[in-house]
């Protein structure tokens, strides 16, 4: 279809175009909810069955990194909302600034995620490849806090007494951990790509009070991805905190 200005050929009016885009994004988000829903269901059922192993797995996560990331993501939702608002009232410069801020926060999140994944890799917690839930406590790195390592060891001992198959079940936890956070990170990466596209548009001053649909629907998407994390964080990091 040919484009006439910002109005695509198949539409009659800008309003119709905007309505279609927003509705389309909402419907897409509904499918996303169901997509993640399958994972959440699998998580719930397995956690119910292997509570101990899931607790042990969860305790290996670094709550400071996860918690910090949660704050970062919430902030990025805020800046995203500000970007939409600026576009609506026609402050073209602010749009760019807030979009860049959002992108920056999103990148921080992804960067931290990489650090966390790297840790799991070092601790042999990648499912399928020499997975060993004991690796970290048996072979701690020199700079690890000996008190923490001792606590970890003790916890593992208890856990093994309860559930001799804990290695397999913890592996299941990590499968879900990587599955869920990986899928979430993938959504963040897509979101970052969309943001870059928006930022380019905003440099050209494309977004005006009349035409700001792209900012708005990317905003919707970004908030959705944020909300998914709000659920993931407690389910993955906080289920058995006592250490």
């Amino acid at each position, binding site marked *: 279809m040919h484009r006439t200005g910002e109005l695509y050929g198949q539409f009659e009016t800008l309003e119709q175009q905007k309505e279609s885009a927003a509705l389309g994004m909402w419907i897409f988000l509904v499918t996303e909810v169901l997509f993640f829903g399958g994972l959440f269901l699998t998580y719930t059922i397995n956690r119910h069955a292997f509570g101990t192993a899931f607790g042990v797995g969860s305790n290996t996560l670094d709550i400071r990194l996860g918690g910090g990331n949660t704050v970062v993501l919430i902030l990025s939702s805020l800046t995203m909302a500000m970007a939409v608002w600026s576009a609506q009232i026609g402050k073209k410069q602010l749009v760019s600034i807030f979009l860049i801020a959002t992108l920056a926060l999103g990148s921080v999140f992804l960067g931290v995620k990489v650090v966390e994944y790297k840790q799991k890799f070092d601790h042999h917690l990648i499912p399928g490849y020499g997975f060993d839930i004991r690796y970290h406590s048996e072979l701690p790195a020199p700079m690890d806090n000996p008190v923490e390592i001792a606590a970890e060891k003790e916890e593992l001992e208890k856990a093994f*007494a*309860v559930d*001799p198959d804990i290695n397999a079940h913890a592996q299941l936890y990590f499968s879900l951990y990587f599955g869920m956070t990986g899928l979430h990170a993938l959504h963040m990466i897509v979101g970052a790509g969309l943001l870059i596209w928006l930022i380019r548009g905003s440099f050209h001053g494309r977004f005006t009070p009349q035409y700001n649909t792209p900012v708005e629907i990317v905003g919707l998407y970004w908030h959705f991805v944020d909300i998914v994390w709000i659920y993931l964080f407690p389910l993955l990091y906080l289920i058995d905190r006592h250490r």
Partner: protein
Amino acid sequence: MQSQLPLYPEQASNFAPHVDALMLFITAVCLFFAGAITTAIVVFFFKYHRKAPNAVGIPIHEDSRLEAVWMIVPLILAMAMFSWGAIVYVDYRRAPQDTLDIYVIGKQWMWKAQQPNGLKEINELHVPVGRNIRLVMASEDVIHDFFVPAFRVKMDVVPGHYNTMWFRPTKPGRYHFFCSQYCGTNHALMGGWVTVLEPSDYSAWLSGSSGGNANPVVAGEKLYAEKTCSTCHIANGTGHAPSLNGVYGAQVLLADGSTVAADETYIRESILQPNAKIVAGYLPLMPSFQGQLTEEQILALTAYIKSLQSQPVPAKGSGIAPPTGKR
């Protein structure tokens, strides 16, 4: 055998007449509707055939009463089908008390059955006529399904679960059974014969060929010692673990205050995932035996625990709730 082209298989269990009657009823309703609709279409088609090339029909838009009728009438018939079907099904899923229990294990691509006295059969199953038979079934690999057309019953055999099914054979004879859940290459070959014998023939058959087959209770007893169960589960209930005497069939009070009926599934779970349900008054000390026992061994242990039917010894007071009747 029936005629050359029979419409239904032989009726050889208590369920067969019920299932066939259901089938007749539903088919009758179906034939009625299919017939009525076809007739209407054919009649209208010829009666209102276009008379002139540019003729149009007479517009009739809607009639709420008619719509109501053809929602309510099918609904009533559907509810009749549902209720009748539900009655048969509930009967099928709830076995009577006095069953003869036979263990069945499915694996790619054969069936192993074990009679109460320990006699083992492969791709064969002998049962006495007129007795309520219950099959307790487990799978060693993928999902299978035990299907006896002449009895009109089937049940999936699911790895990681016990499923049970029951029936009462009503007619001596030999009947096909099939595996009816697709399970890989030789799914179609995973079948055999159920032989229904007169009770006297059945006991003769049992005693005639039982030599060399370990009784599952005996095997279970041995395992019970080997696998160190007996170190914790002391018969008089003085150990760290509840006595298992009489536990089978009782209502067990759990730490979270609920009760559970101790059937095969519960015992199996207690062995494989002891912490799923903790008996009230005990600590979650029992190790899981997941991966250390084969399905056959679990069945043997279960059979042994079932045989421990002397009076329960409620040691720390709360282990076993006051008996509320069996199963």
